């Protein structure tokens, strides 16, 4: 009888890990291929369509970057919380709140402040609104011990219904001819775009956030406390670190980053609050963060990769009339395979042959 089991590797090999990623992506591709066959499409054609859709022209490439911006911010949001073992699955709701904050400031405050102040205020409002939404879950966790996975997840629904209420109701554009959405934001509240593309200033913001986050984690006292709390809470308590306070601040930071993603969507892409704000970036951010194993630099790359899947996946729908859910299946297969390869970089499969 032959059996196998996992044995922990003493030193995980770096080269092995990269090889593992390559194998994982290949494997996910195969799994996706099976799904294409099941929905009656030729996998090779489908992948060609996807690749052409994502990388076929400069415009397509720019669209990848456009979609990667909210994914980077949401990935960083999930990643920073997970560093201290806090599971923020409320990126979607915090993103929506960030959108509400940005739109609210742009619509109602912009006429009353100097134009040069509008954009900074919009950015700040996006961050603060997202941070506030996460703070609600954070304060429940730190004072009453309520599990943040449940609260952040449920707050997503509250946020989504709230934003719908706003653009269907009180904030609806009276000149909108029944179209659900707010009035278009004043131009001073728009994030500047790279000419000829939809790439906006949010990209710089997201990259800056990644760099800052990495610097905070590795260089500052606060980051050090975060790393210790994430690795061993007992040791952190022994060292007298303010654990609950750190958790609360990190929750706010995490929510703020997701809020920034909502702000960039509203003030960089849609220019108004309308349907299509909550399209799942908050959830995909979870995949981004774990694909990158929570490393800020990796999150930037993982966001670009998943954005290319999204852009390519859209083409499947447009060109081959495949259900849009196929893209989600690909995402899922990828996460499954990459996390699996991670397991094998830390453990070794051992075959056992017993005489029995």
């Amino acid at each position, binding site marked *: 009888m032959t059996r196998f089991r996992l044995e922990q590797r003493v030193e995980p090999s770096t080269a092995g890990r990269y090889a593992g990623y390559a194998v994982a992506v290949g494997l996910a591709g195969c799994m996706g291929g099976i799904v294409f066959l099941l929905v009656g499409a030729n996998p090779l054609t489908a992948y060609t369509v996807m690749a052409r859709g994502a990388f076929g022209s400069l415009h397509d490439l720019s669209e990848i970057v456009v979609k990667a911006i909210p994914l980077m911010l949401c990935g960083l949001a999930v990643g920073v919380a997970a560093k201290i073992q806090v599971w923020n699955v409320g990126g979607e709701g915090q993103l929506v709140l960030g959108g509400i904050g940005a739109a609210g400031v742009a619509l109602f405050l912009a006429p009353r402040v100097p134009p040069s102040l509008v954009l900074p205020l919009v950015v700040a409002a996006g961050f603060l609104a997202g941070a506030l939404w996460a703070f609600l879950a954070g304060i429940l966790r730190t004072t009453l011990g309520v599990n943040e996975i449940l609260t952040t997840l449920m707050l997503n629904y509250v946020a989504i219904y709230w934003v719908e209420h706003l653009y269907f109701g009180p904030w609806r554009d009276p000149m909108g001819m029944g179209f659900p959405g707010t009035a278009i934001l004043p131009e001073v509240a728009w994030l500047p775009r790279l000419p000829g593309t939809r790439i906006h200033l949010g990209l710089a913001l997201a990259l800056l956030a990644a760099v800052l986050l990495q610097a905070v984690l590795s260089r*500052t006292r*606060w980051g050090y406390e975060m*790393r210790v709390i994430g*690795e061993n809470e007992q040791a952190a308590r022994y*060292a007298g670190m303010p654990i609950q306070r750190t958790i609360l601040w990190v929750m706010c930071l995490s929510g703020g980053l997701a809020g920034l993603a909502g702000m960039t969507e509203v003030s960089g892409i849609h220019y108004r609050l309308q349907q299509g704000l909550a399209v799942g970036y908050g959830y995909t951010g979870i995949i981004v963060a774990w694909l990158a194993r929570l490393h800020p630099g990796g999150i930037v790359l993982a966001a670009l990769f998943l954005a290319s899947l999204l852009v390519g996946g859209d083409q499947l729908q447009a060109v081959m009339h495949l259900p849009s859910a196929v893209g989600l299946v690909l995402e899922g297969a990828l996460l499954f395979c990459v996390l699996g390869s991670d397991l094998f970089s830390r453990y070794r499969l051992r075959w056992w042959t017993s005489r029995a």
Partner: protein
Amino acid sequence: MAEPAICLRGITKRFPGVLANDGIDLSIGTGMIHALLGENGAGKTTLMNVLAGRYRPDAGEILRAGVPVRFRSPRDALRAGIGMVHQHVMLVANHTVAENVALGLDAPRCLLRWRHIEDQVRRLSETYGLPVDPHARVGELSLGQQQRVEILKLLQRNVTLLILDEPTAVLTPTEIAALFVTLRRIAREGRSVIFITHKLDEVMEIADRITVLRRGRCVADLVPADVDNRRELARLMVGREVLLDIHREPVPPGEVVLELRNCSGDDARGHPAFRNMSFAVRRGEVFAIVGVAGNGQAQLLAALAGSASFSSGQALLFGKPLESAGCRARDQVGYIPEDRAAVGSVSGLDLTDNVLLTTYHRFCRRGVLQRRAARARTQGLLARFQVAAAGPDALGRQLSGGNLQKLILARELSKEPRLIIADQPTHGLDIGATMNVWNELLRQRARAGILLVSGDLTEVLSLSDRIAVIFRGELMGILSAADPEAIAEIGPMLAGVRQG
């Protein structure tokens, strides 16, 4: 001698860069208490993990009643009647004693008969003298009590060979004596016991047979009657003469660094854990609190460390109330926690980060961590305290127990503390490492007062100037270590007899 119950032949086990076991032969007789003696890293635990099915040997075989057996998991070994109590208890802290005993039962039933399991636990604990409440939550028991649960768990599975990895490290003399009674009883029933230790007195007291390991090899296999004196055993263990003495010159006592006045405190459930504690620790002295584990020491230390609070009374740190002591005062306290792996260090971070753990306030400038300076400091500490490590970038988990303790000691002493609180500082360390820690603590008396909490009487008597005995949360009395008559009273006081 009759057919040995278990026979190990040529067991070899390699880890990357280490030959932990090198062709070890060992026979365990039926009904024997077999001591496995050796320094940290001699390969005792590895060998026993092979026997208990946790590791697979690279070479060699295990014979049970003369028949070769192969274990793929601890479960296989358990089915063959071999069970091991590990140095660090492996119980579910949130579960009750009965639930822990039931964990992993082979009985293929969906329904666990709790009443039955509880009765069994009660019966076994009476038969073998292992008192423990089946309903108690394991996380709230002392380490000594948790160890009893581990033994009960194995007895419940009816093991014929019981392996104990340094069982006495967390016990006090009374508890050790009780454990030895239990072990003799188990052996009388025809079961075998393997007892891993590096305490020579215990070996001479309990063992029917002694095997000494050194650097992964078996260097001696003898019976206690053949041993002329302990020094000989010690020499076998370390391969050289050990100086079983320490440098302790009296230091004139200085100012009071820590004072407790009628302090009381509660445990996590709100029950009183210690009452009316009054004592003072002066610079230049070692003040020991000795007692059986679970008599309120943990809660007292938590209150002193600031992670819990006193319910009444006044505590003064460097003459000022402890509650209002700022970072600066706290920074002058060196604290050596009992659990070095889970509390005193972070296994997943490098040694620089581990040195920063309690000193990072000193390496911060406007919130920015001076990592380069911290790394240089770590390198210096590793050299000065002779920590065997690849360097400041090695991970915490790559250090052995003794080296980890050296690192923690180095870190705490590098703060130049005025008060050192040491909780079981040599628990689980070999003779060499223990001497190191002891001598280092004694050297610190020049600038610090030392509060030593220990269950190891040898340690307390070797180091202390004054000894307080704790029982059920109260001090039974404070004795001068220089007074031989007083020392004789420690035994009764540990069991609750007040100072006459």
